[in-house]
């Protein structure tokens, strides 16, 4: 299955120059770059690299769009005030899995004012990457989000903002639909049968899969679409208070605990099943929409080698290992 098509155009060098100026003007630039420790991270770039080369950063765009500790408001002199305007950023050379994850965040935070402000101040440019052995791309998954995509001299508009940038650089009327040059599909996001999932509450597979889980939460922390949060107040000696949202984790024992101590999701097996449900079946208005993008981060981060895909396989096969 091919990657979806978007309006596309091959740009001349002078047009690329104009586009780069527009992408860089008044903005901080970031891209995935290997650090001295060998980990690839989203790092500041002095300029947009002339040649596209996507790589998967350790943390996805959620690091910028739902940053850990993001201020929701500040309380000063008996007044609540919203957060300061977010920085204007351009992030280039993101792989398709992270663009699919961005589409998911855009969906679930569509009505979230701090997210909207950060998203509107962000331009995202994707590029084809070399898939690793432990990840896969699924073109049938979420429609990639972001604004632009580039490969060689060809550019794609992924959003109206991206299209306006291309038209400004190259003039109107020359864009034509063209599939994204993504990698060959390396696999497919597991399809989970809702009825089989619903009937699996008493299946030992959850406790067995969770038996070696350390509840460290690394899988959710690195997942580009895990987005649950806690809110904490950050009071200062001068009397100001900042309420922040911090990353939470459904493997943590307080996640479903209420005042008085009752825990509505006791045990690691149930918590693993909850994460599985969120990832493959979706919650609320997004029921039926999987938010796994095949990036492989969770499996890579898990210190004990738990793979939700293997769990999905076991569920599909029925009881037993």
């Amino acid at each position, binding site marked *: 299955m091919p990657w979806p098509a978007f309006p596309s155009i091959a740009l001349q060098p002078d047009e690329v120059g104009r586009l780069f100026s527009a992408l860089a003007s008044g903005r901080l630039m970031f891209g995935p770059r290997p650090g001295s420790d060998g980990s690839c991270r989203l790092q500041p770039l002095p300029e947009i690299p002339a040649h596209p080369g996507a790589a998967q950063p350790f943390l996805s765009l959620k690091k910028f769009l739902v940053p850990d500790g993001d201020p*929701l*408001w500040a*309380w000063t002199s*008996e*007044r*609540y*005030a*919203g957060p300061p305007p977010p920085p204007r950023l351009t992030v280039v050379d993101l792989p398709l899995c992270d663009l699919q994850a961005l589409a998911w965040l855009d969906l*679930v*935070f569509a*009505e*979230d*004012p*701090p997210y909207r402000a950060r998203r509107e101040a962000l331009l995202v440019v994707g590029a084809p990457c070399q898939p690793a052995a432990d990840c896969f791309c699924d073109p049938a998954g979420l429609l990639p989000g972001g604004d632009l995509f580039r490969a060689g001299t060809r550019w794609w508009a992924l959003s109206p903002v991206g299209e306006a940038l291309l038209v400004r650089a190259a003039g109107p009327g020359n864009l034509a639909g063209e599939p994204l040059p993504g990698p060959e599909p390396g696999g497919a996001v597991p399809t989970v049968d809702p009825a089989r999932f*619903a009937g699996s*509450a008493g299946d030992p597979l959850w406790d067995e899969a969770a038996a070696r889980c350390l509840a460290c939460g690394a899988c959710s922390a690195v997942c580009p679409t895990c*987005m*649950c*949060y*806690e*809110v*904490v*107040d950050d*009071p200062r000696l001068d009397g100001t*208070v900042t*309420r922040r*949202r911090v990353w*939470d984790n*459904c493997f943590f024992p*307080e*996640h*479903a*605990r*209420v*005042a*008085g101590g*009752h825990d*509505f*999701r006791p045990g690691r097996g149930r918590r693993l099943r*909850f994460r599985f*449900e*969120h990832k493959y*079946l*979706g*919650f*609320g*208005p997004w*029921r039926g929409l999987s938010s796994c993008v095949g990036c492989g981060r969770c499996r890579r981060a898990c210190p004990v080698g738990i793979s939700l895909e293997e769990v999905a396989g076991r569920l599909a096969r029925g009881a037993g290992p």
Partner: protein
Amino acid sequence: MNAGFLPMPARIVAIEPLDRDHRLFSLRPAQPFDLRPGQFVEITIPGVGAFPVSACAPVAAGLLTSCIRRAGRVTEALFQLESGALLGVRGPFGNGFPVETFYGSDPLLIAGGLGIAPLRALLHALLAIPERVGRITLLYGTREPGALLFREELAGLAATGRIDLRLSVDFAEELSLEEWGVACEVGLVNDLLRAVTFDPARTVAALCGPPGLYRCLIEELARAGIPPQRIFATLERRMRCGIGECCHCVTGGVFLCREGPVFSLDRLRSMEGAI
């Protein structure tokens, strides 16, 4: 009331102690707002945190009245505050009880413990429309006699025949409840249910209480003949956003804060882990 995460300033205008761990807080938010019975707000103490709570009375004269139990870090801090303190309120969130479903019915309200708080808001909403509803029955159980909240008010409503009130306590050292003019059984709320007579075809039921109350009672109401779409329960869960994002309250794939917290039994049956 407001959008996003910014709370509306709200001042405490009255605090009425009910017992050692329960107080009635009346807040006056800076702008007018409305809150249906069963809906909830998030109350913020700047520098401490926030918690979700429903109102225990319909909003009147711009006042939000909640019965709050000292149960955790933030409510403990609230109990240290006095009238005049400035807090924050976000909301309203959730669906609330479908008051119109009670039109033409005999409402049967069943409360366990602090579950009386949102049901009292519903009760007052129903008492305000006597021409639209029939006989109101309230079954209310707590752990011990001292924990019965709003007892003078409820006893007064029972004495004037406006509600049929049945009380129960799990334990009682002293049985001095007759002084309120209301009989109180020692036992579980289930026993009260077996003792009252109601016409299932005319009944709409609303429950609020700890998880055990739902497990014991809600299907018993259905077995007694009340259609499951006319039995409502409001669910408590950890909540941090109220807008279907933070994921703590999700039960059976449903954001309780958005689609609930009030659900009919026929819906609850399809939500794994709800009751």
